[in-house]
Protein backbone atom coordinates (compact mmCIF):
# COMPACT_ATOMS: atom_id res chain seq x y z
CA UNK A 1 0.00 0.00 0.00
CA UNK A 2 1.37 3.41 -1.00
CA UNK A 3 0.53 6.54 0.96
CA UNK A 4 2.00 10.03 1.23
CA UNK A 5 2.30 13.01 3.52
CA UNK A 6 2.71 16.53 2.25
CA UNK A 7 3.82 19.31 4.60
CA UNK A 8 3.65 22.85 3.29
CA UNK A 9 5.37 24.97 5.92
CA UNK A 10 5.82 28.68 6.01
CA UNK A 11 9.27 28.37 4.45
CA UNK A 12 9.62 24.95 2.90
CA UNK A 13 7.46 22.25 1.37
CA UNK A 14 8.13 18.61 2.22
CA UNK A 15 6.75 15.31 0.96
CA UNK A 16 7.24 11.68 2.04
CA UNK A 17 6.00 8.55 0.30
CA UNK A 18 5.58 5.42 2.41
CA UNK A 19 5.27 1.87 1.31
CA UNK A 20 4.14 -0.41 4.11
CA UNK A 21 5.95 1.45 6.80
CA UNK A 22 9.08 2.12 4.77
CA UNK A 23 10.12 5.47 3.37
CA UNK A 24 10.21 5.12 -0.38
CA UNK A 25 11.10 8.68 -1.21
CA UNK A 26 11.22 12.14 0.32
CA UNK A 27 11.67 15.70 -0.88
CA UNK A 28 12.28 19.16 0.58
CA UNK A 29 12.11 22.42 -1.26
CA UNK A 30 11.68 26.11 -0.54
CA UNK A 31 7.99 26.99 -0.75
CA UNK A 32 6.73 29.89 -2.80
CA UNK A 33 3.93 32.18 -1.79
CA UNK A 34 1.25 29.88 -3.25
CA UNK A 35 0.91 26.82 -1.02
CA UNK A 36 -1.15 24.94 -3.60
CA UNK A 37 1.61 25.24 -6.18
CA UNK A 38 4.36 24.37 -3.70
CA UNK A 39 2.43 21.29 -2.65
CA UNK A 40 2.06 20.07 -6.23
CA UNK A 41 5.70 20.64 -7.02
CA UNK A 42 6.96 18.81 -3.98
CA UNK A 43 4.60 15.89 -4.46
CA UNK A 44 5.72 15.57 -8.08
CA UNK A 45 9.33 15.63 -6.98
CA UNK A 46 8.80 12.82 -4.47
CA UNK A 47 6.74 10.80 -6.93
CA UNK A 48 9.33 11.16 -9.69
CA UNK A 49 12.04 10.06 -7.29
CA UNK A 50 10.09 6.91 -6.50
CA UNK A 51 9.09 6.40 -10.11
CA UNK A 52 5.40 6.59 -9.25
CA UNK A 53 2.34 8.47 -10.45
CA UNK A 54 -0.08 10.29 -8.18
CA UNK A 55 -2.76 7.72 -8.97
CA UNK A 56 -0.59 5.05 -7.31
CA UNK A 57 -1.17 6.64 -3.93
CA UNK A 58 -3.98 5.20 -1.85
CA UNK A 59 -4.23 8.06 0.63
CA UNK A 60 -2.54 11.44 1.07
CA UNK A 61 -2.57 13.67 4.14
CA UNK A 62 -1.65 17.32 4.01
CA UNK A 63 -0.23 19.29 6.90
CA UNK A 64 1.67 22.45 7.75
CA UNK A 65 0.93 26.11 7.63
CA UNK A 66 -0.48 25.97 4.07
CA UNK A 67 -2.43 22.74 4.52
CA UNK A 68 -5.84 24.25 3.88
CA UNK A 69 -4.81 25.32 0.40
CA UNK A 70 -3.79 21.83 -0.76
CA UNK A 71 -6.61 20.46 -2.84
CA UNK A 72 -5.31 17.03 -3.86
CA UNK A 73 -5.10 15.50 -0.39
CA UNK A 74 -7.69 13.22 1.19
CA UNK A 75 -7.44 14.84 4.58
CA UNK A 76 -5.57 17.60 6.41
CA UNK A 77 -4.10 17.24 9.89
CA UNK A 78 -2.39 19.73 12.16
CA UNK A 79 1.40 19.65 12.04
CA UNK A 80 1.40 19.37 15.82
CA UNK A 81 -0.10 15.90 15.50
CA UNK A 82 2.21 14.97 12.62
CA UNK A 83 5.43 15.96 14.36
CA UNK A 84 4.34 14.11 17.46
CA UNK A 85 3.50 11.03 15.46
CA UNK A 86 6.73 10.91 13.47
CA UNK A 87 9.03 11.43 16.41
CA UNK A 88 7.31 8.78 18.45
CA UNK A 89 7.43 6.35 15.50
CA UNK A 90 11.14 6.96 15.01
CA UNK A 91 11.75 6.39 18.69
CA UNK A 92 8.85 5.07 20.80
CA UNK A 93 10.27 6.43 24.04
CA UNK A 94 9.92 10.07 22.91
CA UNK A 95 7.59 12.09 25.15
CA UNK A 96 8.38 15.60 24.06
CA UNK A 97 9.02 16.97 20.60
CA UNK A 98 10.41 20.39 19.87
CA UNK A 99 9.75 21.43 16.30
CA UNK A 100 11.53 24.53 15.14
CA UNK A 101 10.59 25.54 11.64
CA UNK A 102 10.86 28.71 9.66
CA UNK A 103 8.15 30.69 11.34
CA UNK A 104 7.06 28.81 14.42
CA UNK A 105 8.61 26.93 17.26
CA UNK A 106 6.43 24.41 19.03
CA UNK A 107 6.81 22.15 22.01
CA UNK A 108 4.62 19.05 21.99
CA UNK A 109 3.98 16.51 24.73
CA UNK A 110 2.97 13.06 23.46
CA UNK A 111 1.86 9.90 25.20
CA UNK A 112 3.03 6.35 24.51
CA UNK A 113 0.78 6.14 21.43
CA UNK A 114 2.14 9.30 19.94
CA UNK A 115 -1.08 11.19 20.71
CA UNK A 116 -0.73 14.82 21.68
CA UNK A 117 -1.28 15.61 25.36
CA UNK A 118 -0.43 19.31 25.36
CA UNK A 119 1.41 21.69 23.10
CA UNK A 120 2.43 25.30 22.86
CA UNK A 121 3.54 27.69 20.14
CA UNK A 122 6.17 30.37 20.58
CA UNK A 123 4.96 33.80 21.65
CA UNK A 124 4.60 35.66 18.43
CA UNK A 125 6.75 38.59 19.43
CA UNK A 126 9.76 36.54 20.43
CA UNK A 127 12.19 35.49 17.79
CA UNK A 128 12.91 31.82 18.28
CA UNK A 129 12.55 30.54 14.76
CA UNK A 130 14.49 29.42 11.72
CA UNK A 131 13.79 32.61 9.85
CA UNK A 132 15.50 34.50 12.67
CA UNK A 133 18.65 32.47 12.11
CA UNK A 134 18.47 33.08 8.38
CA UNK A 135 18.27 36.82 8.86
CA UNK A 136 21.17 36.71 11.27
CA UNK A 137 23.22 34.57 8.88
CA UNK A 138 22.64 37.21 6.25
CA UNK A 139 23.65 39.98 8.60
CA UNK A 140 26.84 38.06 9.41
CA UNK A 141 27.35 37.20 5.74
CA UNK A 142 27.76 33.52 6.57
CA UNK A 143 25.92 30.77 4.68
CA UNK A 144 23.11 29.43 6.85
CA UNK A 145 24.54 25.91 6.76
CA UNK A 146 27.80 27.16 8.28
CA UNK A 147 26.29 29.24 11.05
CA UNK A 148 25.98 26.25 13.34
CA UNK A 149 29.54 25.09 12.75
CA UNK A 150 30.84 28.58 13.35
CA UNK A 151 29.06 28.62 16.66
CA UNK A 152 30.68 25.39 17.79
CA UNK A 153 34.21 26.83 17.51
CA UNK A 154 33.44 29.88 19.62
CA UNK A 155 35.61 30.41 22.66
CA UNK A 156 33.82 33.39 24.06
CA UNK A 157 30.16 33.69 23.07
CA UNK A 158 28.76 37.22 23.27
CA UNK A 159 25.55 37.82 25.12
CA UNK A 160 22.55 38.78 23.06
CA UNK A 161 19.33 39.31 24.85
CA UNK A 162 17.20 41.19 22.39
CA UNK A 163 13.80 39.65 21.95
CA UNK A 164 12.95 41.34 18.72
CA UNK A 165 14.35 40.25 15.36
CA UNK A 166 14.67 43.80 14.12
CA UNK A 167 16.51 44.96 17.22
CA UNK A 168 18.66 41.84 17.26
CA UNK A 169 19.73 42.49 13.71
CA UNK A 170 21.01 45.98 14.51
CA UNK A 171 22.62 44.51 17.57
CA UNK A 172 24.49 41.97 15.45
CA UNK A 173 25.64 44.68 13.09
CA UNK A 174 26.96 46.80 15.93
CA UNK A 175 28.70 43.77 17.46
CA UNK A 176 30.44 43.22 14.13
CA UNK A 177 31.44 46.85 14.01
CA UNK A 178 32.85 46.54 17.49
CA UNK A 179 35.15 43.83 16.22
CA UNK A 180 33.50 40.80 17.78
CA UNK A 181 34.37 37.53 16.05
CA UNK A 182 31.73 35.86 13.91
CA UNK A 183 31.85 32.51 15.77
CA UNK A 184 31.27 34.33 19.05
CA UNK A 185 28.29 36.21 17.68
CA UNK A 186 26.92 33.06 16.04
CA UNK A 187 27.23 31.20 19.29
CA UNK A 188 25.58 34.08 21.17
CA UNK A 189 22.67 33.97 18.76
CA UNK A 190 22.25 30.21 19.12
CA UNK A 191 22.25 30.48 22.87
CA UNK A 192 19.77 33.32 22.90
CA UNK A 193 17.47 31.30 20.69
CA UNK A 194 18.04 28.10 22.65
CA UNK A 195 17.02 29.95 25.79
CA UNK A 196 13.78 31.02 24.20
CA UNK A 197 12.98 27.54 22.98
CA UNK A 198 13.84 26.07 26.36
CA UNK A 199 11.44 28.50 28.02
CA UNK A 200 8.75 27.34 25.64
CA UNK A 201 9.32 23.69 26.46
CA UNK A 202 9.48 24.35 30.17
CA UNK A 203 6.23 26.28 30.13
CA UNK A 204 4.32 23.04 29.50
CA UNK A 205 6.57 20.85 31.62
CA UNK A 206 9.84 19.45 30.36
CA UNK A 207 10.11 15.71 29.70
CA UNK A 208 13.54 14.12 29.58
CA UNK A 209 12.76 11.93 26.56
CA UNK A 210 13.00 14.77 24.15
CA UNK A 211 13.50 14.92 20.39
CA UNK A 212 13.87 17.75 17.94
CA UNK A 213 12.38 18.11 14.49
CA UNK A 214 12.00 20.74 11.78
CA UNK A 215 14.70 22.31 9.65
CA UNK A 216 16.43 23.98 12.57
CA UNK A 217 17.20 20.56 14.06
CA UNK A 218 19.76 20.25 11.27
CA UNK A 219 21.66 23.14 12.70
CA UNK A 220 24.34 21.48 14.83
CA UNK A 221 25.09 24.66 16.74
CA UNK A 222 21.46 25.03 17.67
CA UNK A 223 21.13 21.39 18.60
CA UNK A 224 24.03 21.53 21.05
CA UNK A 225 23.08 24.96 22.40
CA UNK A 226 19.65 23.62 23.23
CA UNK A 227 21.12 20.54 24.90
CA UNK A 228 23.36 22.74 26.96
CA UNK A 229 20.59 25.10 27.99
CA UNK A 230 18.16 22.31 28.83
CA UNK A 231 20.86 20.35 30.55
CA UNK A 232 19.55 17.28 28.74
CA UNK A 233 20.63 15.01 25.94
CA UNK A 234 18.33 15.43 22.97
CA UNK A 235 17.65 12.19 21.14
CA UNK A 236 19.05 11.98 17.66
CA UNK A 237 16.30 10.65 15.46
CA UNK A 238 17.08 8.73 12.34
CA UNK A 239 16.79 10.51 8.99
CA UNK A 240 16.21 14.12 8.07
CA UNK A 241 14.38 15.95 10.88
CA UNK A 242 13.06 18.49 8.42
CA UNK A 243 10.71 15.97 6.80
CA UNK A 244 9.17 14.79 10.07
CA UNK A 245 5.96 16.71 9.57
CA UNK A 246 5.44 15.07 6.20
CA UNK A 247 6.51 11.72 7.61
CA UNK A 248 3.97 12.00 10.41
CA UNK A 249 1.29 12.85 7.86
CA UNK A 250 2.21 9.78 5.81
CA UNK A 251 2.11 7.57 8.91
CA UNK A 252 -1.33 8.89 9.73
CA UNK A 253 -2.36 8.20 6.14
CA UNK A 254 -1.29 4.62 6.63
CA UNK A 255 -3.30 4.39 9.85
CA UNK A 256 -6.32 5.82 8.10
CA UNK A 257 -6.03 3.20 5.37
CA UNK A 258 -5.62 0.40 7.87
CA UNK A 259 -8.80 1.53 9.59
CA UNK A 260 -10.81 1.52 6.37
CA UNK A 261 -9.47 -1.95 5.50
CA UNK A 262 -10.37 -3.47 8.85
Amino acid at each position, binding site marked *: MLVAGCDVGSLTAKAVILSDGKILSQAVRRANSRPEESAKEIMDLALADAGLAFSDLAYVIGTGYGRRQISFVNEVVSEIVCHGKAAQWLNPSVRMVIDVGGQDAKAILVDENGSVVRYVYNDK*CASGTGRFLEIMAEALEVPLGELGEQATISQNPV*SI*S*NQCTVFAETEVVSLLNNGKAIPDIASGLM*RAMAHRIAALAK*SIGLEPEIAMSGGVAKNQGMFSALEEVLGLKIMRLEGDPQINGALGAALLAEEAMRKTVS
Partner: protein
Amino acid sequence: MLNEFSEVAKTLSNRFIQQWKDDGKQVVGFMCSYVPEEIICAAGLLPFRMRGIGASSTSIADTYFGPVICSFPKCILQLAGEGKYDFLDGIILIPGCDSIRRIDECWRKAAEESHGKFPPFHLYYGVPHKLTDYSLEWFVAETRKLVESLERHFGRKITPEDLTHAIKIYNQGRILLTRLDELRAGENVPISGADATAVIISAGVMPRDAYNRLLEELLQKLSRSTNGMTGKKRLLLAGSIIDDIDLVRLIEASGGIVVADTLCFGSRSYVDLVEEDGDPLVAIARRYLSHKLCPRMFGSYKERLEFMKQRVRQARVDAVILQNIRFCDMHGSENSLYERDLEAMGIPCLKIEREYGPLVEEGRIKMRVDAFMESLNT
Protein backbone atom coordinates in the same frame (compact mmCIF):
# COMPACT_ATOMS: atom_id res chain seq x y z
CA MET B 1 36.76 55.63 46.70
CA LEU B 2 34.77 56.03 43.52
CA ASN B 3 36.05 52.61 42.64
CA GLU B 4 34.48 51.29 45.75
CA PHE B 5 31.08 52.63 44.73
CA SER B 6 31.36 51.47 41.19
CA GLU B 7 32.38 48.01 42.39
CA VAL B 8 29.25 47.91 44.54
CA ALA B 9 27.05 49.17 41.72
CA LYS B 10 28.42 46.68 39.24
CA THR B 11 28.19 43.48 41.26
CA LEU B 12 24.95 42.00 42.41
CA SER B 13 26.30 40.39 45.55
CA ASN B 14 28.75 43.10 46.52
CA ARG B 15 31.39 42.82 49.21
CA PHE B 16 29.25 44.58 51.83
CA ILE B 17 26.54 42.00 51.37
CA GLN B 18 29.05 39.22 51.73
CA GLN B 19 30.48 40.79 54.86
CA TRP B 20 26.99 41.23 56.29
CA LYS B 21 26.15 37.61 55.62
CA ASP B 22 29.49 36.47 57.06
CA ASP B 23 28.51 38.30 60.22
CA GLY B 24 25.47 36.05 60.38
CA LYS B 25 22.96 38.75 59.53
CA GLN B 26 20.09 38.65 57.10
CA VAL B 27 19.15 40.46 53.90
CA VAL B 28 15.68 41.33 52.60
CA GLY B 29 15.14 42.34 48.99
CA PHE B 30 12.57 44.93 47.98
CA MET B 31 11.19 45.62 44.54
CA CYS B 32 10.62 49.32 44.28
CA SER B 33 11.27 52.71 45.80
CA TYR B 34 7.86 52.65 47.50
CA VAL B 35 9.01 50.10 50.08
CA PRO B 36 10.19 51.84 53.27
CA GLU B 37 13.75 50.72 53.75
CA GLU B 38 13.68 52.23 57.24
CA ILE B 39 11.43 49.44 58.46
CA ILE B 40 13.59 46.66 57.10
CA CYS B 41 16.61 48.34 58.63
CA ALA B 42 14.83 48.77 61.97
CA ALA B 43 14.32 45.01 62.03
CA GLY B 44 18.07 44.58 61.99
CA LEU B 45 17.95 43.41 58.40
CA LEU B 46 19.76 44.75 55.38
CA PRO B 47 17.35 46.14 52.79
CA PHE B 48 18.49 45.30 49.29
CA ARG B 49 16.95 47.08 46.29
CA MET B 50 16.28 44.33 43.71
CA ARG B 51 18.21 44.65 40.48
CA GLY B 52 18.48 42.75 37.23
CA ILE B 53 22.07 43.49 36.26
CA GLY B 54 24.11 40.75 34.70
CA ALA B 55 21.23 38.64 33.43
CA SER B 56 22.20 37.40 30.00
CA SER B 57 18.95 35.72 29.04
CA THR B 58 15.41 35.48 30.33
CA SER B 59 14.79 31.80 29.66
CA ILE B 60 13.76 30.94 33.21
CA ALA B 61 11.66 34.07 33.57
CA ASP B 62 9.90 33.42 30.27
CA THR B 63 8.50 30.12 31.46
CA TYR B 64 6.42 32.08 33.96
CA PHE B 65 5.97 35.55 32.53
CA GLY B 66 4.19 36.03 29.25
CA PRO B 67 5.51 38.21 26.44
CA VAL B 68 4.92 41.98 26.38
CA ILE B 69 6.26 42.47 29.91
CA CYS B 70 9.05 44.81 30.93
CA SER B 71 12.43 43.07 30.95
CA PHE B 72 13.42 44.46 34.36
CA PRO B 73 11.35 42.06 36.50
CA LYS B 74 12.17 39.30 34.03
CA CYS B 75 15.89 39.81 34.58
CA ILE B 76 15.35 39.77 38.34
CA LEU B 77 13.47 36.49 38.21
CA GLN B 78 16.09 35.09 35.89
CA LEU B 79 18.87 35.90 38.35
CA ALA B 80 16.88 34.38 41.18
CA GLY B 81 16.24 31.25 39.14
CA GLU B 82 19.95 30.99 38.42
CA GLY B 83 20.68 31.12 42.13
CA LYS B 84 22.31 34.54 42.01
CA TYR B 85 20.00 35.83 44.70
CA ASP B 86 20.87 33.10 47.14
CA PHE B 87 22.01 35.75 49.63
CA LEU B 88 18.43 36.88 50.21
CA ASP B 89 16.52 35.81 53.29
CA GLY B 90 13.32 37.45 52.20
CA ILE B 91 11.65 39.57 49.59
CA ILE B 92 9.01 42.27 49.66
CA LEU B 93 6.94 42.64 46.51
CA ILE B 94 4.71 45.51 45.70
CA PRO B 95 2.30 46.94 43.12
CA GLY B 96 4.77 49.59 41.98
CA CYS B 97 3.82 49.30 38.37
CA ASP B 98 2.09 46.35 36.69
CA SER B 99 5.22 44.65 35.37
CA ILE B 100 6.78 44.99 38.80
CA ARG B 101 3.78 43.58 40.62
CA ARG B 102 3.38 40.62 38.30
CA ILE B 103 6.67 39.22 39.46
CA ASP B 104 4.83 38.15 42.61
CA GLU B 105 3.14 34.98 41.35
CA CYS B 106 5.96 34.19 38.93
CA TRP B 107 8.42 34.38 41.80
CA ARG B 108 6.37 32.09 44.00
CA LYS B 109 5.85 29.51 41.24
CA ALA B 110 9.53 29.60 40.35
CA ALA B 111 10.33 29.17 44.03
CA GLU B 112 8.08 26.12 44.27
CA GLU B 113 9.84 24.57 41.34
CA SER B 114 13.50 25.30 41.99
CA HIS B 115 14.37 24.16 45.44
CA GLY B 116 16.44 26.27 47.71
CA LYS B 117 17.37 29.19 45.52
CA PHE B 118 14.57 31.41 46.72
CA PRO B 119 14.30 33.07 50.12
CA PRO B 120 11.77 31.74 52.62
CA PHE B 121 10.20 35.07 53.50
CA HIS B 122 7.81 36.57 50.96
CA LEU B 123 5.43 39.46 51.43
CA TYR B 124 3.18 41.39 49.11
CA TYR B 125 2.97 44.94 50.39
CA GLY B 126 0.15 47.09 49.01
CA VAL B 127 0.70 50.76 48.29
CA PRO B 128 -2.26 52.90 47.20
CA HIS B 129 -1.89 55.15 44.17
CA LYS B 130 -3.23 58.32 45.69
CA LEU B 131 -2.81 60.36 48.82
CA THR B 132 -5.94 61.10 50.85
CA ASP B 133 -6.69 60.78 54.53
CA TYR B 134 -8.36 57.40 54.01
CA SER B 135 -5.65 56.03 51.72
CA LEU B 136 -3.07 57.02 54.31
CA GLU B 137 -5.09 55.26 56.98
CA TRP B 138 -5.16 52.12 54.83
CA PHE B 139 -1.46 52.40 54.17
CA VAL B 140 -0.55 52.88 57.82
CA ALA B 141 -2.38 49.64 58.59
CA GLU B 142 -0.60 47.92 55.70
CA THR B 143 2.72 49.19 57.01
CA ARG B 144 1.86 47.89 60.46
CA LYS B 145 1.25 44.51 58.86
CA LEU B 146 4.65 44.73 57.25
CA VAL B 147 6.23 45.39 60.63
CA GLU B 148 4.40 42.47 62.21
CA SER B 149 5.32 40.07 59.43
CA LEU B 150 8.97 40.96 59.70
CA GLU B 151 8.83 40.62 63.47
CA ARG B 152 7.15 37.26 63.25
CA HIS B 153 9.40 35.79 60.63
CA PHE B 154 12.73 37.16 61.79
CA GLY B 155 11.89 36.91 65.46
CA ARG B 156 12.87 40.40 66.47
CA LYS B 157 10.65 43.11 67.88
CA ILE B 158 10.78 46.44 66.06
CA THR B 159 10.54 49.17 68.68
CA PRO B 160 9.68 52.83 68.08
CA GLU B 161 13.30 53.56 68.99
CA ASP B 162 14.50 51.23 66.25
CA LEU B 163 12.30 53.06 63.79
CA THR B 164 13.41 56.49 64.93
CA HIS B 165 17.02 55.43 64.65
CA ALA B 166 16.49 54.07 61.14
CA ILE B 167 14.68 57.24 60.10
CA LYS B 168 17.68 59.29 61.25
CA ILE B 169 20.16 57.22 59.30
CA TYR B 170 18.11 57.27 56.13
CA ASN B 171 17.36 60.96 56.36
CA GLN B 172 21.02 61.61 56.82
CA GLY B 173 21.75 59.58 53.70
CA ARG B 174 19.18 61.56 51.78
CA ILE B 175 20.68 64.85 52.91
CA LEU B 176 24.14 63.71 51.86
CA LEU B 177 22.84 62.67 48.45
CA THR B 178 21.23 66.06 48.06
CA ARG B 179 24.65 67.60 48.74
CA LEU B 180 26.08 65.45 45.99
CA ASP B 181 23.42 66.90 43.70
CA GLU B 182 24.43 70.39 44.71
CA LEU B 183 28.02 69.69 43.80
CA ARG B 184 26.94 68.32 40.45
CA ALA B 185 24.89 71.46 39.90
CA GLY B 186 27.98 73.68 40.01
CA GLU B 187 29.71 75.15 37.00
CA ASN B 188 32.62 72.84 37.60
CA VAL B 189 31.17 69.32 37.74
CA PRO B 190 33.43 67.24 39.98
CA ILE B 191 31.95 63.83 39.10
CA SER B 192 30.72 62.20 35.93
CA GLY B 193 27.10 61.13 35.68
CA ALA B 194 28.14 57.50 35.45
CA ASP B 195 30.14 57.74 38.68
CA ALA B 196 27.39 59.67 40.41
CA THR B 197 24.92 56.98 39.35
CA ALA B 198 27.18 54.36 40.91
CA VAL B 199 27.21 56.33 44.14
CA ILE B 200 23.43 56.70 44.16
CA ILE B 201 22.69 53.08 43.30
CA SER B 202 24.98 51.89 46.08
CA ALA B 203 22.65 53.50 48.60
CA GLY B 204 20.04 50.82 48.01
CA VAL B 205 22.33 47.82 48.18
CA MET B 206 24.63 48.26 51.17
CA PRO B 207 24.26 49.02 54.88
CA ARG B 208 23.22 52.62 55.15
CA ASP B 209 25.50 53.72 58.00
CA ALA B 210 28.56 52.41 56.20
CA TYR B 211 27.24 54.05 53.09
CA ASN B 212 26.79 57.40 54.78
CA ARG B 213 30.35 57.32 56.07
CA LEU B 214 31.73 56.55 52.65
CA LEU B 215 29.61 59.16 51.00
CA GLU B 216 30.64 61.80 53.48
CA GLU B 217 34.27 61.14 52.70
CA LEU B 218 33.58 61.33 49.01
CA LEU B 219 31.70 64.59 49.35
CA GLN B 220 34.63 66.11 51.18
CA LYS B 221 36.96 65.09 48.45
CA LEU B 222 34.66 66.28 45.70
CA SER B 223 34.07 69.66 47.30
CA ARG B 224 37.81 70.23 47.36
CA SER B 225 38.27 69.09 43.81
CA THR B 226 39.45 71.72 41.39
CA ASN B 227 39.71 69.75 38.20
CA GLY B 228 36.01 69.31 37.47
CA MET B 229 34.46 69.14 34.05
CA THR B 230 33.34 72.32 32.35
CA GLY B 231 32.03 73.25 28.97
CA LYS B 232 30.09 70.08 28.40
CA LYS B 233 26.39 70.00 27.60
CA ARG B 234 24.58 69.36 30.86
CA LEU B 235 22.01 66.58 30.72
CA LEU B 236 19.18 65.40 32.94
CA LEU B 237 18.19 61.75 32.75
CA ALA B 238 14.53 60.84 33.27
CA GLY B 239 12.11 57.93 32.85
CA SER B 240 12.15 54.19 33.59
CA ILE B 241 14.52 52.37 35.89
CA ILE B 242 18.25 52.69 35.26
CA ASP B 243 20.63 50.84 37.53
CA ASP B 244 23.22 50.24 34.88
CA ILE B 245 26.09 52.68 35.02
CA ASP B 246 27.28 51.57 31.61
CA LEU B 247 24.15 53.03 30.09
CA VAL B 248 24.97 56.41 31.63
CA ARG B 249 28.54 56.04 30.48
CA LEU B 250 27.32 55.31 26.96
CA ILE B 251 25.22 58.46 26.98
CA GLU B 252 28.11 60.54 28.25
CA ALA B 253 30.43 59.10 25.62
CA SER B 254 28.67 61.34 23.13
CA GLY B 255 30.14 64.39 24.80
CA GLY B 256 27.57 65.48 27.37
CA ILE B 257 27.57 65.11 31.12
CA VAL B 258 24.67 63.91 33.22
CA VAL B 259 24.28 66.34 36.10
CA ALA B 260 20.84 65.40 37.40
CA ASP B 261 18.12 62.80 37.13
CA THR B 262 14.53 62.13 38.07
CA LEU B 263 14.93 58.35 38.22
CA CYS B 264 13.57 56.04 40.86
CA PHE B 265 16.95 54.48 41.53
CA GLY B 266 18.17 58.08 41.50
CA SER B 267 17.00 61.34 42.96
CA ARG B 268 13.43 60.17 43.46
CA SER B 269 14.67 57.87 46.19
CA TYR B 270 16.11 60.66 48.31
CA VAL B 271 14.21 63.88 47.77
CA ASP B 272 11.60 63.68 50.51
CA LEU B 273 12.64 63.26 54.13
CA VAL B 274 10.70 61.39 56.81
CA GLU B 275 9.49 63.67 59.59
CA GLU B 276 11.49 63.01 62.72
CA ASP B 277 8.85 63.69 65.33
CA GLY B 278 5.49 62.08 65.95
CA ASP B 279 4.70 58.39 65.59
CA PRO B 280 7.62 57.08 63.54
CA LEU B 281 5.58 54.47 61.71
CA VAL B 282 2.96 57.00 60.63
CA ALA B 283 5.71 59.40 59.62
CA ILE B 284 7.30 56.74 57.43
CA ALA B 285 3.98 55.84 55.83
CA ARG B 286 3.28 59.50 55.15
CA ARG B 287 6.65 60.05 53.49
CA TYR B 288 6.19 57.14 51.12
CA LEU B 289 2.58 57.76 50.19
CA SER B 290 3.13 61.50 49.73
CA HIS B 291 5.87 60.75 47.30
CA LYS B 292 4.34 61.59 43.94
CA LEU B 293 7.39 61.52 41.73
CA CYS B 294 6.66 58.17 40.11
CA PRO B 295 3.94 58.12 37.44
CA ARG B 296 2.33 55.29 39.42
CA MET B 297 0.79 58.17 41.38
CA PHE B 298 -1.74 58.96 38.69
CA GLY B 299 -3.16 62.43 38.37
CA SER B 300 0.00 64.10 39.72
CA TYR B 301 1.77 64.87 36.47
CA LYS B 302 1.80 68.60 37.15
CA GLU B 303 3.67 68.09 40.41
CA ARG B 304 6.18 65.92 38.63
CA LEU B 305 6.63 68.50 35.92
CA GLU B 306 7.26 71.07 38.62
CA PHE B 307 9.90 68.82 40.16
CA MET B 308 11.48 68.30 36.76
CA LYS B 309 11.61 72.03 36.09
CA GLN B 310 13.13 72.64 39.48
CA ARG B 311 15.85 70.06 38.80
CA VAL B 312 16.47 71.59 35.39
CA ARG B 313 16.85 75.02 36.90
CA GLN B 314 18.97 73.96 39.88
CA ALA B 315 21.40 71.91 37.88
CA ARG B 316 21.41 74.33 34.94
CA VAL B 317 20.45 71.56 32.56
CA ASP B 318 20.82 72.11 28.82
CA ALA B 319 18.81 69.14 27.63
CA VAL B 320 16.75 66.24 28.94
CA ILE B 321 16.94 62.58 27.97
CA LEU B 322 13.58 60.88 28.40
CA GLN B 323 13.88 57.13 28.17
CA ASN B 324 11.54 54.27 28.83
CA ILE B 325 11.97 50.53 28.94
CA ARG B 326 9.87 48.80 26.30
CA PHE B 327 6.37 48.00 27.63
CA CYS B 328 6.60 50.71 30.29
CA ASP B 329 3.58 52.72 29.19
CA MET B 330 3.56 54.89 32.28
CA HIS B 331 6.94 56.43 31.70
CA GLY B 332 6.62 56.18 27.94
CA SER B 333 3.43 58.25 27.76
CA GLU B 334 4.49 60.65 30.42
CA ASN B 335 7.76 61.24 28.62
CA SER B 336 5.73 62.59 25.73
CA LEU B 337 4.02 65.07 28.02
CA TYR B 338 7.41 66.16 29.37
CA GLU B 339 8.68 66.52 25.85
CA ARG B 340 5.75 68.74 24.95
CA ASP B 341 6.06 70.91 28.04
CA LEU B 342 9.84 71.14 28.29
CA GLU B 343 10.34 71.90 24.63
CA ALA B 344 7.76 74.64 24.97
CA MET B 345 10.09 76.12 27.57
CA GLY B 346 13.00 75.86 25.16
CA ILE B 347 14.60 72.78 26.70
CA PRO B 348 15.50 70.22 24.02
CA CYS B 349 14.49 66.63 24.76
CA LEU B 350 15.47 63.25 23.38
CA LYS B 351 12.91 60.50 23.78
CA ILE B 352 14.11 56.90 23.49
CA GLU B 353 12.67 53.46 24.10
CA ARG B 354 15.07 50.75 25.18
CA GLU B 355 15.31 47.25 26.63
CA TYR B 356 16.49 46.68 30.15
CA GLY B 357 19.55 44.49 30.34
CA PRO B 358 23.16 44.29 29.36
CA LEU B 359 23.66 47.05 26.86
CA VAL B 360 22.14 45.10 24.08
CA GLU B 361 21.29 48.07 22.00
CA GLU B 362 24.47 49.94 22.40
CA GLY B 363 24.65 50.86 18.72
CA ARG B 364 21.09 52.02 18.44
CA ILE B 365 21.19 54.17 21.56
CA LYS B 366 24.57 55.62 20.73
CA MET B 367 23.42 56.66 17.29
CA ARG B 368 20.50 58.56 18.72
CA VAL B 369 22.40 60.25 21.50
CA ASP B 370 25.16 61.22 19.09
CA ALA B 371 22.69 62.85 16.75
CA PHE B 372 21.01 64.60 19.64
CA MET B 373 24.27 65.98 21.01
CA GLU B 374 25.21 67.19 17.57
CA SER B 375 21.93 69.05 17.28
CA LEU B 376 22.57 70.66 20.67
CA ASN B 377 25.98 71.86 19.61
CA THR B 378 24.83 73.52 16.40
